[in-house]
């Protein structure tokens, strides 16, 4: 302010490395997940909307083969443990622990992506077979995009953790990276029900 100021508050002692809701990157990530969550919700809503337009479901094709999907969901559920471990180590400022956790998480991501490769043929129809096929392919591609994004982000975090350019402010990034991992795992559970079980029970 340019009007004769009175200095009444010294903030020089405030921390520069802060976690959770104190950190802008936490909010940025929450908002990003909200945007993506809205996208997922609308894809699922569209799926059920199309269901109401058809007497037969799935229309003219077999339901997807379930076991790859179940295996991937279980794998991703277990991956929550290293994700949580990373958060605890990052908040303690433990670089080696965080890096090890990130390496384990990246391994989980790589396996999940490989299994995902088997899930597409297991859908039992192509994207151009009918609207149902288009919808389930869109759903799986959308989630795979998120899984891939999160996996690449984890690799970038590993690069930071292994680099001479590592800064303290990356620890909150490691912490937030796990939040996004939970988000990807959460949607895989929902998607598992919609993709594999809805065609069998609706």
């Amino acid at each position, binding site marked *: 302010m340019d009007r004769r100021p009175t200095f009444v508050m010294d903030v*020089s*002692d405030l921390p520069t490395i802060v976690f959770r809701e104190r950190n*802008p990157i936490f909010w940025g990530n929450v*908002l990003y997940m909200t945007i993506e969550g809205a996208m997922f919700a609308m894809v699922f809503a569209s799926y059920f909307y*199309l269901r109401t337009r058809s007497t037969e479901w799935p229309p003219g094709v077999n339901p997807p083969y379930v076991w790859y999907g179940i295996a991937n969901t279980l794998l991703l559920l277990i991956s929550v443990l290293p994700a949580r471990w990373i958060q605890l180590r990052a908040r303690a400022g433990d670089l080696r622990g965080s890096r090890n956790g990130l390496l384990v998480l990246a391994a989980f991501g790589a396996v999940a992506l490989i299994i995902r490769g088997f899930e597409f043929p297991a859908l039992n129809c192509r994207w151009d077979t009918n609207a149902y*096929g288009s919808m389930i392919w*869109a759903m799986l591609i959308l989630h795979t995009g998120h899984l891939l994004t999160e996996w690449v982000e984890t690799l970038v975090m590993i690069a930071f953790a292994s680099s001479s350019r590592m800064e303290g402010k990356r620890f909150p990034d490691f912490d937030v990276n796990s939040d996004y991992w939970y988000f990807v795992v959460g949607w895989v559970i929902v998607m598992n029900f919609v993709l594999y079980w809805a065609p069998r029970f609706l």
Partner: protein
Amino acid sequence: MAVADPIIASPSERHERLARTWSDGRGVYGWFTNVHHTTIGRRYMITSFLFFVLGGILAALIRLQLARPENHLLDPDKYNQIFTVHGSTMIFLFAVPMMYQAFGVYLVPLMVGARNIAFPRLAAFSYYIYVGGCLLLWGGLLLNIGADTGWFSYVTLSGPAFSPGKRVDFWAQMITFTELSALAVAVCLIVTIFKHRAPGMTLNRMPLLIWEKLVLSFMVIFAMPAVMLVSSMLLMDRTANTHFFNPAEGGDVLLYQHLFWFFGHPDVYIIFLPGAAIVSTLVTTFSRRHIFGYPGIVVATIATGFLGFGVWVHHMFATGLPQLSESFFTAATLMIVIPTAYQFFCWVATLWTGRPQLRLPMLWVGGFFFVFLIGGLSGLMLASVPVDQQVHDTFFVVAHFHYVLIGGAVFPMFGALYYWYPKIVGRMANETLARVHFWLFFIGFNLTFFTMHFLGLRGMPRRVYTYLPEMHWASLNLIATSGAIFMTAGVLVFLFNVFWSREKGPIATANPWGAGTLEWGVSSPPPPYNFLNIPIVSGREALWDDPPHQPVVSGLRDDVREMLLTNSLDAEPEGREEQPGPSIWPFVSAVVVSVVLIGSIFTLWAVVYGIVPIIITIVGWIWPTQREASQTRSHEKWSVAP
């Protein structure tokens, strides 16, 4: 610590240090690296206004074509392209980018007492990606392969069977560009408001414009994904043989309309709420009193945000929906009048009980009251299903939404541009020219669009390139076209005023209007760091309510771009954050994303090929130099020692 003690160092010494730290790059290369919010906000304003002018030129062509029956100035194909690109430009390239991004990016950090926007590189990226969308849509038009299926491009007309070629694809992918831009700005603005408010600016002291930007950002976050999804589905139906909207293969055309309007109606409020917030700001300043009913206006803004998502089906009354849904959405549509009317009454009460001054920007507030009220009333008529069925797809609807959108957005926008012109440019705009501009625009607008109500009631449908003399629509159309000439003249006067006053206008003081919000506490135009000292706020109108010896914060570094972090509810200081400086990567990233998105119109494999280049640009964006990293490490401080 390399920081000048503010109590010991002179203001000019600190000014120099801060200016050195916060100044963005210069020259051609530097232009593409700028990340300060005032620069990005100004660019948004200039670009979106340019597209307002271009969209207006298309509107003028439409009016010239319709000025007389059986006119052949434009052929049907050109006419289709022109009205499609006109509508798309005005909504996606002008209204939202101007009312939301431009004003939001420029004003929010200044109004909350911050030195920059949160995630400044993301804000810069949002601008370049928006420009990519502009070039795509207009590139198509200039090559005579412009989108031609209306601004909402309904299937089945826009599907592969009825619109072969690439025209609709330009439109569909332009949506991805512009909505990506709006979403990025939403994240930047929410985090700025949550984390960078000046100490003391508790939630109940936030300026109404900041409340509106907060609500609006959440609306963007929930609405924009719907249109990105639906335009992507359309694109896939056209390029990858999917069948989302193909009834022959189990797809559904109404799914398109549901998803589109789930975005489309909130978008109306995304355009109108900024107008309402501008009116609240101007009415407060020029009534010389705090706004009447502040808590109620905040609740009304939030209520509008929620209700805006519950009315989308009223755009689909003519599609044969079940009567129960029609009744529900009629009721919801009528309900949304309540918070808007509440705001109207608060503005009137503020003016009534204040000491109103009819300064220049207030002319536009008066115009807004008149025009938007008429638009609101015809909206009430359209909310009724029988009336809607009768006038559906006629010029009555065209009249209604121009009254709402021009009344709700363009009138407040001009008011806002005159109000903040001195802050942005540093000089006052010429009052005489501005009054000429207002009256030309106001008279021209009403001549053009009030007439359209009657054209609609006489059965003239939208989107026809000409009509027969026997229809007896010629006189009214000629009146409408003459109004367009007045509006064009008004905008030309405005442009002349902007350029003339920039050189010749009287120098503006920091606070020429005697306003109360924080942006008026800094020089005009603001210095590169915004605030020499971060203020401590003690009232809703910070400059009116603060004690004469402004209490301020000390201890922020001036050798790095350090920002104060405060908590979301009470704005109590809780940390410091070093912001990244200028960078070319947001621009490079936007170029790569643009190439990938445009490539995907031709082959969806472009998305696959594009993954690696996109990753490289994002890593470049966040990867610090060795010097930056060691500098940051040198003054890190943990909240709890690890």
